C-alpha cells in the first residue's frame, strides 16, 4: 500500500504489436504488476511516436496504426519497484523504462495488498509439489479462481502449474462435486499441481491465502529430473508471431 513520502514512478514504453510469451507486452506487464501487488498502474496509448527503430508510427496512416506507442506507468515504494525491475527488464524487449523519484502527497486507500516475491530461480533436484484442490465454480474478483491462480503463479515466477479437472469428488465443505455432460452448472473438482522449490512455494502462501476461500492445499516432496525449455521451438514461435 502506498504511504505518504518518497516513492518511485516508473514509466515503461513499449510498442503495441509486441508480444511477450503470446500476450501483448503491455498486458503481460500489467498482469505482472497486478499480481506482484503494485498499488496502481495505468496504460496509455499514444497517437503518434517513434522509438529505437526511428520509424514514425501514427494513427493517421492506416497501415501503421497497429504499432502505436504504449506507456505503462506505476508508482510504488522503492522496495517494491526494486523487486519487479529484473522481470520488467526481461519483458520490455525493444522498449525501455525510466524511473523517477516522486513524493506521495495523498496516499490511496487500499483494501488488500500482498508482498512481492523474490525473483526467479531455476529449479533442479529437491523440490516440492503443491497440490491445490478447488471447485471449478470458485471465483476470485469475478474470474475463475483456477485461472487467477495460474496467472498469479506465473506472475510470481513459479516454475510451473497444471490444472486437472476431476469427474467426482468432495472436500472440506462435504459438498459433492460432480462433472455431468448435460448440465450447464457442473462444478467439477479441480486439481492444480504446482512444482517449485519449497522456499518459492512458501513465499506464495500469503497470496494463496488471500485468493482461496475454500479448498485444500497439500505439499509433498518431489525430485526434479528435467526442467527444460526448447529455445529453438520458442524462436520459431516468435518468428510466426512477427
Amino acid at each position, binding site marked *: 500500500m502506498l504511504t505518504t513520502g518518497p516513492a518511485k514512478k516508473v514509466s515503461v514504453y513499449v510498442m503495441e504489436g509486441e508480444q511477450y510469451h503470446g500476450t501483448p507486452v503491455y498486458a503481460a506487464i500489467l498482469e505482472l504488476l497486478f499480481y506482484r501487488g503494485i498499488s496502481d498502474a495505468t496504460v496509455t496509448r499514444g497517437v503518434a511516436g517513434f522509438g529505437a527503430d526511428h520509424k514514425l508510427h501514427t494513427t493517421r496512416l492506416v497501415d501503421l496504426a497497429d504499432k502505436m506507442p504504449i506507456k505503462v506507468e506505476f508508482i510504488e515504494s522503492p522496495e517494491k519497484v526494486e523487486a519487479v525491475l529484473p522481470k520488467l527488464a526481461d519483458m520490455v524487449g525493444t522498449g525501455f523504462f525510466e524511473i523517477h523519484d516522486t513524493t506521495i502527497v495523498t496516499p490511496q486507500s487500499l483494501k488488500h495488498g500482498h508482498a512481492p516475491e523474490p525473483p526467479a530461480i531455476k529449479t533442479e533436484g529437491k523440490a516440492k509439489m503443491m497440490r491445490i*484442490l478447488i471447485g471449478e465454480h470458485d471465483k476470485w474478483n469475478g474470474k475463475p479462481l483456477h485461472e487467477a491462480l495460474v496467472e498469479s503463479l506465473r506472475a510470481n515466477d513459479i516454475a510451473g502449474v497444471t490444472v486437472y*479437472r476431476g469427474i*467426482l469428488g468432495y472436500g472440506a465443505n462435504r459438498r459433492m462435486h460432480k462433472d455431468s455432460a448435460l448440465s450447464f452448472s457442473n462444478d467439477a*473438482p479441480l486439481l492444480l499441481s504446482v512444482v517449485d522449490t519449497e522456499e518459492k512455494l512458501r513465499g506464495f502462501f500469503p497470496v494463496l491465502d488471500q485468493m482461496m476461500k475454500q*479448498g485444500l492445499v*497439500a505439499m*509433498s516432496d518431489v525430485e526434479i529430473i528435467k526442467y527444460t525449455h526448447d529455445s529453438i521451438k520458442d524462436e520459431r514461435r516468435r518468428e510466426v508471431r512477427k
Partner: protein
Amino acid sequence: MKLMGQAKMLRIHFGEDDKWNGRPLYEAIVEKCRELDIAGATVFRGIEGYGASTLIRRPHAFRFSAGDSPILVQVIDTEAKVQTLLPVLDQMVSEGLIAMSDVEVIKYTHQDGENLK
C-alpha cells in the same frame, strides 16, 4: 474436522469400467470415503494409460463418454484415517494399484473461510 500438518495421500488407480456391486467402482469408493468421514476424495479420468492388467486403457475416439479410461482416485487425510480405509479398499479394488505417500497439509478450509482445525 482436524487436518493440518503431516498427513497421507492415497492414490488408487484402476479402470473406469471397474464395478463394485453393479455400480462404478470410483463412485463406490468416494461414497465409502464419505461414510468413513475421510477429509476429501477426488476422482480424475486419464486419457491413456496401462497398469496392473497390462492392457492399454484408451477411450474410444468416436463414443461420447465411453471406453475403459484409466481412473485415479486421490484421497488425503491423517495416517490413522487412511488406515481405516485400506482394508475396505483391499476388498473393493480387485485389479489396480494403491500407492501411499507423505504430504503436508497447508490449508483445509470451507466457504466461510474458517480453518477447520
